[in-house]
């Protein structure tokens, strides 16, 4: 007889097709398509059709040949993600310009009073001036005016320029000065104030203005005033050019945004924690009250908003009242988000602290029986609901060569990370935790400041390369690859993602190494943390060390580096782990579908 096991997941619907001969299954083929609609709803049926059809075609069979379809009793788990910034940087009365134009002019440090270039001839002989050059004055006029003023005995010691004219102006000066250009909001530069400007050589960074005592030297500050310029100097570290303007009340502050409290209600205990205390404190609180019944945010605060948003999304998806949605696990992750500095004059941005949150909600028992009935009616084939997802996944995982009971699996999907363990006696225990592939994608997007989730998903899934000429790229590992035809100029000198559909250039100025680091860290923060969290929960002793073998299954186990990151981390607990290889051929895919077929054999 021919049996199809079909696994409807949150993201994909997978089929395993087998022929039973003498009570033993002989696997014929498999299928995979995107899940249609929300898992556990009528819309899934289209995906089931498509997935089954794929498998049948590969095996040269038709629906009529199928004797039995077994679908999974889906784990009623849905995940969502959110992000909350918890610090901000504010400049009151602009006191600094810390941006990095790619082509500043001149070199060195200059100090003087800020004067609009059109008024520079009103200055006194011997006065020290920093000229401010708005868009309206072109570089030829600017340099002529400066040269003229210098001839008249005015000391022009630097320039702040709106257009990208720094080098052009400097090339036309008789006396060279440091010039910071591309200052977009030049009107916000205060006039008639003492200012210092510094431009470092190519490849170097400013040294004087990034040191509080350097600023003190330039402006002759008292020790109290020096204390006040510390945030300014810190913000300028690592820049090639900088301007500091001394205004009477000017200041740069980093302040904490009060993000509100999270209230975690456990079965017996309750805990409260401030979101702005960071992820570690939140995770400690969750651990301390486990098992969790529900998690809420303080009403009227950002934390409240963040969790209520999750609840709202869930309620829409599952057609339940928001109040009926219980958040039963939460993964909080500390991260950084690039944010424009409030009050900046050259669109300076700073990396602000943020907390990312993945939440996991237990929905109502999903309507798999209804799906089974409809399928049976439409196909004319017997359809049964075949067993709990985690049990099936373990059965499937055990077909990996080299694996044996006792065995744990970690199923790394899109919305949740699930773990299950089977002991020698065949007893199975399982757990669902918040945070998986979607959380990784969110972290990548927010740390790099991209709104585009599809782009972040590509960054997650595919390796990077740097386009080094119109004809060649350099891969992450340094290998060079040549092309016969010139590459798209839009990719020139950029970091690109090597997707199966071609090279996608990355916006912004991030180096390959930076993006790679963000990507790998996001994967570590979610999957390494959740691997250990989930194994702790299913371990018979509560201790991760007491698990010997772990196989990794699910879509995120296909990743080109997640399995290795997890394997590496688990090896510190003396755990043998690795990507599953279902039936020796499927890799980490098809575990549940395969398990559904195998469970029939066992008469389940």
């Amino acid at each position: 007889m021919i049996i199809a096991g079909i696994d409807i997941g949150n993201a994909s619907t997978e089929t395993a097709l087998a022929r039973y001969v003498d009570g033993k299954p002989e696997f014929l083929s498999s299928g995979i398509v995107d899940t249609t609609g929300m898992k556990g709803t009528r819309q899934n049926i289209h995906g089931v059709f498509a997935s089954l059809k794929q498998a049948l075609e590969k095996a040269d069979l038709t629906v009529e040949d199928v004797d039995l379809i077994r679908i999974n009793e889906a784990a009623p788990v849905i995940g969502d993600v959110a992000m909350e910034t918890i610090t901000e940087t504010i400049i009151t009365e602009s006191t600094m310009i810390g941006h990095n134009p790619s082509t500043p002019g001149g070199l060195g440090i200059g100090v003087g009073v800020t004067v609009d270039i059109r008024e520079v001839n009103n200055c006194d002989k011997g006065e020290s001036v920093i000229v401010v050059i708005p868009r309206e004055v072109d570089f030829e006029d600017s340099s002529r005016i400066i040269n003229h003023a210098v001839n008249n005995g005015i000391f022009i010691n630097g320039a702040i320029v709106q257009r990208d004219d720094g080098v052009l102006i400097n090339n036309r000066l008789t006396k060279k000065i440091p010039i910071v250009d591309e200052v977009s909001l030049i009107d916000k530069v205060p006039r008639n104030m003492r200012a210092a400007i510094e431009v470092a050589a190519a490849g170097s960074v400013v040294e004087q203005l990034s040191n509080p005592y350097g600023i003190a030297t330039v402006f002759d500050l008292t020790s109290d005033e020096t204390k006040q310029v510390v945030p300014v100097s810190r913000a300028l570290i690592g820049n090639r050019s900088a301007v500091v303007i001394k205004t009477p009340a000017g200041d740069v502050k980093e302040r904490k945004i009060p993000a509100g409290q999270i209230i975690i209600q456990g079965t017996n205990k309750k805990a409260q924690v401030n979101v702005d205390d960071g992820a570690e404190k939140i995770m400690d609180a969750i651990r301390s009250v486990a098992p969790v019944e529900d998690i809420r945010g303080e009403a009227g605060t950002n934390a409240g908003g963040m969790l209520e948003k999750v609840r709202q999304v869930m309620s829409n998806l599952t057609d339940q009242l928001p109040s009926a949605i219980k958040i039963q696990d939460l993964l909080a992750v500390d991260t950084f988000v690039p944010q424009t500095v409030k009050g900046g004059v050259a669109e300076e941005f700073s990396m602000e602290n943020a907390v990312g949150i993945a939440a996991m909600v237990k929905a109502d028992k999903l309507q798999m029986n209804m799906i089974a009935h409809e399928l049976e009616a439409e196909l004319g084939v017997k359809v049964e609901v075949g067993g709990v997802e985690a049990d099936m996944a373990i059965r499937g995982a055990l077909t990996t060569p080299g694996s044996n009971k006792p065995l744990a699996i970690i199923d790394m999907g899109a919305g949740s990370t699930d773990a299950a363990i089977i002991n020698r006696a065949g007893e199975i225990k399982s757990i669902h935790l918040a945070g998986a592939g979607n959380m990784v994608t969110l972290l990548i997007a927010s740390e790099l400041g991209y709104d585009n989730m599809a782009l972040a998903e590509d960054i997650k899934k595919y390796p990077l390369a740097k386009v080094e000429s119109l004809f060649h790229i350099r891969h992450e590992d340094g290998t060079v690859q040549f092309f016969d035809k010139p590459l798209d100029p839009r990719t020139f000198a950029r970091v690109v993602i090597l997707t199966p559909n071609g090279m996608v250039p990355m916006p912004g100025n991030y180096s390959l190494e930076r993006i790679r680091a963000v990507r790998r860290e996001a994967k570590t923060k979610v999957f390494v943390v959740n691997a250990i969290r989930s194994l702790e929960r299913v371990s018979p002793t509560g201790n991760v060390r007491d698990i010997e073998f772990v196989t990794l299954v699910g879509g995120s186990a296909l990743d080109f580096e997640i399995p290795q990151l997890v394997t590496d981390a688990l090896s510190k607990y003396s755990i043998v782990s690795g990507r599953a290889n279902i039936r020796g051929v499927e890799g980490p895919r098809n575990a549940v579908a395969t398990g559904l077929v195998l469970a029939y054999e066992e008469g389940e």
Partner: protein
Amino acid sequence: MDFDAPKPEIKIVHGKNIMFQKVVDEVLHGIEEEGVPFSIEELEDANPVELAFRGAELSHLGVGIGITENEVVLHFIKLKEDQPIFRIPAYSNEATLRAIGSNAARLVKKMPFKNLDNTELS
């Protein structure tokens, strides 16, 4: 080892008796702001793509710009002669003219190109 080479320059080639000095100037300013050396040549030819390719051949950086009354073209020695990297109308605004000059320099400096419609890739 101690050896010497011709000065690396971008070569700008334009037609004779030009009436479009302003166009040439803006392109040159784009190169100058990026800090890459350049030199200018005058040739009879009227086809801007050919001028640009000729520039690329003359340039020891392999980068040429051809300018005629109608068009500004950026070319690179390793490309097929009839397929330059960028071409824009000579009546483009100042920012675009400068940008094609910048791009010639950026081709040399291996920096991402400016968009010729005045928007940065973002």
